[in-house]
């Protein structure tokens, strides 16, 4: 996998997107994190294969996705298909059998963008699929309920596209995995098949570590941001979600084997420029629990107590 400067990669991506679609594009995942934490540092590079782009808001996501797909394919971007879904579908193809939108720039097969749509605020389902009809055929757009948090106050960039806030990506990942699931990722990370929850929860710890590196008291602010984010996007369920935001991290810290997998993904991902052992990640997890998770839970308990 080739390593890129996060700023340059974000610039290339923005340049390829139609101007009118840029402000609807929120970059999430490792590129967003790398841009936020070392965008100005040319020494620090990001090794990413998938650039996840969340199209927001939900109501505009399908038309924006259509414009993006058609414009990029017109410009000779190349679709990257999974062997299980080797071509765009037709109106007759069931939704489940449609490929996701993954497009590589011409002549650069080592990275691709992947389009996701922002979730509908009223839909309680964890994962929702939508049909995307284009001149090139039918694709599938996915949305994940907790990605609504990535839409909270995203950070602007000079390139016109937005990047999600690290603390919101961390919360979305933490909520998505309240337990360590057994599902393993289809691909490998440095030769190992890793549990998806360990990869995502490891990302939470990596984001926390980088946030603390930038500002030693950053995690103290996360609890307040998390509460505001949950109240904004999940007004009816925010305190239930707040109460279980730390369950996955707690489970990860309690299992050396899972923590080791999380560490493996982190040091070959966002933390590749740092020499960190698993104990550093565990210590960061304990700090996260103390500074962000517990205050968030306290706020939820307090709200529950006063509203009864």
């Amino acid at each position: 996998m080739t390593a890129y400067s996060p700023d340059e990669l974000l610039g290339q991506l923005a340049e390829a997107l139609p101007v009118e679609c840029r402000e609807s594009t929120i970059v999430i995942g490792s590129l967003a994190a790398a841009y936020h934490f070392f965008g100005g540092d040319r020494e620090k590079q990001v090794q990413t294969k998938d650039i996840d782009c969340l199209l927001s808001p939900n109501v505009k996501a399908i038309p924006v996705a259509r414009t993006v797909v058609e414009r990029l394919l017109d410009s000779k971007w190349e679709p990257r298909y999974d062997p299980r879904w080797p071509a765009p579908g037709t109106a007759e193809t069931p939704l489940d059998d449609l490929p996701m939108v993954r497009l590589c720039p011409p002549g650069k097969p080592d990275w691709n963008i992947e389009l996701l749509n922002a979730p509908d605020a009223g839909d309680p389902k964890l994962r929702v699929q939508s049909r995307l009809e284009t001149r090139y055929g039918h694709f599938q757009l996915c949305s994940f309920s907790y990605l609504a948090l990535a839409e909270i106050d995203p950070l602007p960039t000079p390139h016109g596209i937005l990047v999600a806030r690290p603390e919101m990506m961390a919360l979305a990942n933490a909520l998505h995995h309240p337990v360590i699931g057994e599902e393993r990722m289809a691909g490998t990370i440095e030769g190992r098949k890793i549990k998806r929850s360990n990869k995502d929860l490891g990302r939470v710890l990596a984001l926390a570590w980088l946030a603390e590196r930038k500002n030693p008291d950053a995690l103290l602010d996360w609890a307040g941001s998390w509460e505001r984010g949950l109240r904004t996007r999940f007004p009816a369920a925010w305190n239930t979600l707040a109460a279980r935001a730390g369950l996955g991290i707690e489970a990860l810290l309690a299992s050396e084997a899972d923590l080791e997998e999380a560490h493996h993904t982190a040091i070959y991902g966002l933390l590749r420029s740092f020499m960190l052992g698993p104990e550093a990640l565990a210590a960061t997890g304990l700090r996260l629990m103390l500074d962000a998770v517990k205050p968030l839970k306290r706020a939820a308990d307090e709200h529950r107590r006063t509203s009864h």
Partner: protein
Amino acid sequence: MRTKPYIGYEPDLQLGEWAVSFKTGAQSIRNIRAELLTLAYWLAERQGTRALLVIVDSNITKARLEREDALLGNVLKADIAKRLKTAVVNNGRPEGLPAELGAEDRQRLLESIPERARASRSKPSPYAVLEILLHEWLLGHGPMTLDRIQRAGGLSYPSVASALARYEGITERGAGRKVQLRYFPSDEWAELVAVSPRIRSTLTFTDHSGNPRSPESLLRRLSMIAAPNVAVGGSFAARHYLPSLDLLGTPRLDLSVHGTSLDPSLVDLLDPALKRTTNKRERVSLAIHLVSRAEPLFEEGPDGIRYADPVECLLDLHEARLEAQAAELIDHFKRARSDRMGTEGST
């Protein structure tokens, strides 16, 4: 791999596959049971690891421990019971250390004990009295009664009288059996600084996150928790006593804790990434000094922060090798005292 376990236990010492814990001065088998159970939980999470509980300077005998081992063996899984061992060390003499521990590991284990045991030991009374006299002198207080010294130090009359006899040459007696230092006793101070690494109960902590928190950040967190028996020492206290003190950067946070033992939750609340270290080569982020005298002599600053007394603060500076700053601070106290005396004399 060393990972802070979520059950809140951390071995005091790791010797190969052996995780060693020390329990000092336990008088009841009930205290030991809690320790054994914690170790059993810990072992259940770690295949291939063994745990050794060392009971230090206690009246619990190895034979009594063996009976407890047998009882525990009845309720634990055989695999865990087999990996959990106990030993006693009284006055430096070990009994029941596992035969598998090599000579070098045994030596390391025994060397680690005094460091722990010291935390619960009282300071020799002459030094305790000298510290109180210095405290009063540096702050420009007047002479004090023996009774006052006794109460501040939590010392007996004979201990105070004997210490004062030792310091007869540098003290003066006044009306009402009151006593004070005649001047700043440089020789005695130098002796106190020299012996302080041995007689102070200091616990040091190092960062394990790879992102050490600054002393300022730790101080902010201290202000967020209720810790009435804790005072800030070291550089921060030095700046409290002398704001113009020439201090560039603060290498670590020094805290004085009133008591003979440390509640580990204090460190966990300040920063759960901190772990105890006795390795002099490791960078220390936090040093905690146990102040075991009856009165802590802490002082509340205008900022609402409690500060360690000047003597503790000066010893902290010496420990951090900030000798020039310590000397500057002493000069400041001397000048302030002299100014105060002059003012009092002219009114």
